[in-house]
């Protein structure tokens, strides 16, 4: 790495918060295991993260000590469970700087969060009385991008099929960034919603949102950001982002699977029709019709993933304890190191930004003449766990003319030694297929 002098008055490198990576690793029991006779090198955190003991303990403690259903019991454990569940909501709200915990809707994962918004649009579009901001019909447009995860593509394709609206998208540049050159035309008076990824799960790109947000406001559309990959890895502040909705998923941020979050501006959630009907989401039910609870309860029909939400609260505590700024910086340094190291591998091509600026610690690459499946298989034999395939972002693969890529992704517990193991593993791959 080249070093540059930072002008006085600017934040210096020493000001960056740091933590002891080895101490962090000791919190994650699974990181001590072996794979195929080698210490496991887990480089698939963009897929799902590992879980620290603190989160696993919270999960077990909840079931061992406080288990009851929420919001429907007067008894002690029911009250404790409700307090823990609502406490987790408040922790999540603070974590993303949401003005109120009531803006945090617990769902199953990012996919459900995005679908929930899509179906709210649907429901507002049939019959009379839907809030005009959520009404869609022929002539209306939804804008996404070419670098989306399938879960931020397919719900909108389905919504457009149901309503007759048109789906459009931002292209991606050769360098793996959003091509905003057509912004003015793409986002226009017909646009009702713009939904795009904050950090790409395949290219690693962190999208600058300000210009798009400004345009979205100009035309009076709504903005959803898929923050599945950003909330786990960097400080995310919904007020600062000025979004209308964000979606993220617990299992990528040290929490268990089965819990995710839809954050929405309070006033918008209040204007949104319900999507799932059932217990806990109602105000009053009569055989002739029902009225609905205010958000977030309106969107949480049925018994929610209680213990998972509590564990997400514990994960938020854990991440906050280390510091999101520190985690962001750790991954930035690691990414710089990895980009340099990967450059030394003959025949390796990186898809996405090749400098550690405006990108996170998720690096997709191809090895000339060797299929990613084969790369992943040989790496696994060396204990190195990466993801291969289209990463649920097939349009990106098509954009770069490859059927699949190999992807290494980092997190707070990843070390430079593990990046070295990856590079050594790639030598082995080249030996087998050379």
């Amino acid at each position, binding site marked *: 790495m080249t070093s540059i002098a930072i002008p006085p008055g600017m934040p210096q490198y020493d000001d960056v918060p740091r933590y002891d990576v080895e101490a962090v690793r000791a919190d994650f029991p699974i990181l001590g295991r072996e794979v*195929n006779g080698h210490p496991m090198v887990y480089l698939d955190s963009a897929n799902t993260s590992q879980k620290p003991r603190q989160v696993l303990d919270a999960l077990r403690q909840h079931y061992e000590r406080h288990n009851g259903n929420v919001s429907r019991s007067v008894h002690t454990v029911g009250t404790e469970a409700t307090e823990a569940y609502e406490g987790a909501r408040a922790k999540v709200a603070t974590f993303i700087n949401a003005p109120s915990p009531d803006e945090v809707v617990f769902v199953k994962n990012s996919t459900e969060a995005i679908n929930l918004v899509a179906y709210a649009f649907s429901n507002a579009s049939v019959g009379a009385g839907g809030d005009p901001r959520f009404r869609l019909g022929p002539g209306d447009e939804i804008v996404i991008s070419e670098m989306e995860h399938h879960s931020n593509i397919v719900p909108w394709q389905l919504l457009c099929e149901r309503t007759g609206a048109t789906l459009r998208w931002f292209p991606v540049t050769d360098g793996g960034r959003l091509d905003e050159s057509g912004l003015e035309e793409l986002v226009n008076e017909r646009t009702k919603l713009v939904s795009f990824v904050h950090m790409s799960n395949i290219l690693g790109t962190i999208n600058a949102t300000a210009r798009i947000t400004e345009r979205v406001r100009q035309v009076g559309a709504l903005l959803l950001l898929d923050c599945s990959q950003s909330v786990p890895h960097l400080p995310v502040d919904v007020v600062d982002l000025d979004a209308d909705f964000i979606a993220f998923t617990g299992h990528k941020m040290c929490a268990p699977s089965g819990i995710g979050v839809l954050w929405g501006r309070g006033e918008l959630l209040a204007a949104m029709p319900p999507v799932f009907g059932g217990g806990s989401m109602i105000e009053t039910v009569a055989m002739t019709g029902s009225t609905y609870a205010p958000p977030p309860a309106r969107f949480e029909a049925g018994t929610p993933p209680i213990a998972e939400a509590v564990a997400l609260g514990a994960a938020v505590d854990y991440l906050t304890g280390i510091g999101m700024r520190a985690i962001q910086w750790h991954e930035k340094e690691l990414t710089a190191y990895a980009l340099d190291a990967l450059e030394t591998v003959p025949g390796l091509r990186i898809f996405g930004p090749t400098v550690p600026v405006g990108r996170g610690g998720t690096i997709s690459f191809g090895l000339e003449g060797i*299929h*990613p*499946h*084969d790369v992943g*298989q*040989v790496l*696994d*034999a060396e204990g190195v766990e990466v993801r*291969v*395939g*289209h990463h649920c972002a*097939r349009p990106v*693969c098509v954009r770069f003319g490859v*059927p*699949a890529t190999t992807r290494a992704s980092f997190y707070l517990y990843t070390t430079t030694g593990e990046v070295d193991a990856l590079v050594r593993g790639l030598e082995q791959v080249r030996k*087998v*297929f050379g």
Partner: protein
Amino acid sequence: MQVDQLYQEIILDHYKHPHGRGLREPYAAEAHHVNPTCGDEVTIRVALDDDTLSDVSYDGMGCSISQASASVLHELLTGRDTGQAFAVHAAFVELMSGRGQVTPEEELLGDAVAFAGVARYPARVKCALLPWMAFKDAAARAGVDVEAGNEDSNERSEVKTA
């Protein structure tokens, strides 16, 4: 697990120097299969001369296992009568479904015995089976009675329109 059990020399050989690759005319029917989880693709064409498979041609894109498997399939099945071909097909499917516990029938399977190691890698079994499932589909479309074959493919199949 030893990775060289998976990547047998024979498999790497077929991958690097595929036999009979390319789609040929004339043909009775073809089938295009994709593995939706990884995007691997293969197209298989069968040409029939009465009950004999006068040609099995193919093209594809994917990992070493799926592409080598197509090459081996071409070599094993071309020139056989359909009854024999489906006996080989059934033996290969059985081998791949055996989680490494099935002893391959060398006589019948030829180079395909090298895929015995693949059966120990559940994530890769689909790769090996991809061309064989496409073959079965193509044969069925050509009017061959394939009832004797194995039914547990869950790859998607489509008739090629191009």
